[in-house]
């Protein structure tokens, strides 16, 4: 029998579930704010504003938990991208997902104790967590304290620009979430990866 790999430590799983719940709250309230209407609002505007702000601050605190966890535990090394063979590995993985998977080829980068993520996962996780997430947090905090935003950027409202950055990065992370959820069904069974995130074993 194949031995199970313990890849998801407790702190990571706690952060993951907190992050997931808060992110869903932020998407729901964010969409409700962006598409607010006099006749019909998904969530009442005032409630949506305060919930979005509270969830935003909470997810920022949780984000630091994720960053420090990766800085001070071995989990951080899984996110390191090696330059050597970067594009060819990425292409191999893309080829697998777009063809190989349908003809029952073996996954080119199986999960091991040293390799938790395949090259595509690695790039998308790093992009989401270390690129889009900080942009999201910074622009969100700026919108909570708009007095610190530069009022005019080349004739364009600084607050508006910050709002656009916040919305675009939020949209990017929402798309990431959709793809992330779908790819989680590509495990031994469609639910095995979800179970891994609960019990920690892959």
């Amino acid at each position, binding site marked *: 029998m194949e031995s199970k790999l313990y890849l998801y430590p407790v702190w990571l799983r706690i952060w993951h579930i907190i992050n997931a719940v808060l992110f869903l709250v932020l998407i729901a309230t964010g969409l409700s704010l962006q598409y*607010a209407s*006099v006749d019909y609002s998904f969530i009442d505007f005032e409630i949506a504003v305060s919930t979005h702000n509270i969830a935003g601050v909470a997810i920022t605190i949780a984000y630091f938990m994720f960053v420090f966890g990766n800085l001070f535990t071995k989990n951080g090394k899984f996110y390191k991208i090696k330059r050597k063979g970067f594009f060819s590995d990425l292409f191999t993985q893309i080829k697998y997902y777009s063809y190989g998977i349908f003809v029952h080829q073996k996954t080119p980068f199986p999960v091991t104790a040293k390799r938790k993520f395949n090259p595509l996962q690695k790039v998308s996780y790093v992009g989401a967590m270390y690129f889009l997430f900080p942009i999201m947090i910074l622009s969100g905090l700026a919108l909570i304290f708009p007095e610190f935003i530069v009022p005019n950027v080349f004739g364009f409202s600084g607050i508006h620009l910050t709002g656009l950055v916040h919305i675009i990065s939020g949209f990017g992370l929402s798309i990431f979430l959709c793809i992330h959820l779908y790819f989680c069904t590509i495990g031994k069974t469609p639910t095995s990866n979800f179970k891994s995130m609960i019990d920690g074993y892959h």
Partner: protein
Amino acid sequence: MVTTLLLWMLPVATFAEDEEAPVFENAEYNHQCFKCHGQKTYRYYNESMDREMKDRMNPYFIIDSALYYQSNHASFMCTDCHSPEYETFPHAGELRMEQQFACLDCHGGDETYAHYQFERIEEEFQASIHSTKHNEDFTCWMCHNPHTYKINARNNHNIKEVIVYDNNICLSCHADINKYQLLSDEENPSILAAHEWLPNQTLHFSKVRCIECHTEIDKEMLIAHKVCSKEKAVKRCVECHSQNSLLTATLYKFETFEKRNKLGFFNAAILTDHYIIGANRNYYLNVASIVIFGLTLLVIIIHAILRIISK
């Protein structure tokens, strides 16, 4: 050499002359008034003491001549509105009881001013809380100082300046107990406390005018004058924070008139310079987000179907 230099300088001198401040024909006449009413002190001959005396001018009777000559009434002589008997100095005491003009006395029924809709303004004002609560004690001058008032929202495209100018009109009473109590025995209510419920108070106060929430909007009028009681003030966030934001009918009315319907996108005008959560919607971003989201779902569905088929 000197002639050449003079010829070269000539257009500059002409240009400099063009740039000079406009000359007001009434200035010389008005100067007789500003000699005292433009200063903090004035001199007069006291007959009973038989000597010239210097006294302090009542601060409420001091008119800033610089602001006056920038105002809409700059071309007026003081006696166009005030009694010609003021030409006698010291002024007769009963002159302070003189009847003051209201806006409609000059502007009413005049085609020249038709686009300002003075009659409609008067109608709205009569229905406003200012008029219904204080009757004739509340005049146009309570808000529009005839000596300094100048048209603002129509001429100024800097919305920030328009907001400051218009809000200062409200604050001149509602943040000044001395003027407020001219009409009311009530204690001056604290604006900050009354607006405690409003999130991001500072931002709201600097980005919108009091009248946006405190007047009944009339789509046909640029500036609504029907100031309502506080119970009727706009308190629902979505009234402004939504696609058909009421700000497009008030604060951004001029801008939206000019730029509306660009790509059929109602909020195009607000989009460029201002940001209001819920009201700013970028047409291209909306389309792009729907397309990207749709394509993502489509790819996921196709991929999932192929996985099921090839199982």
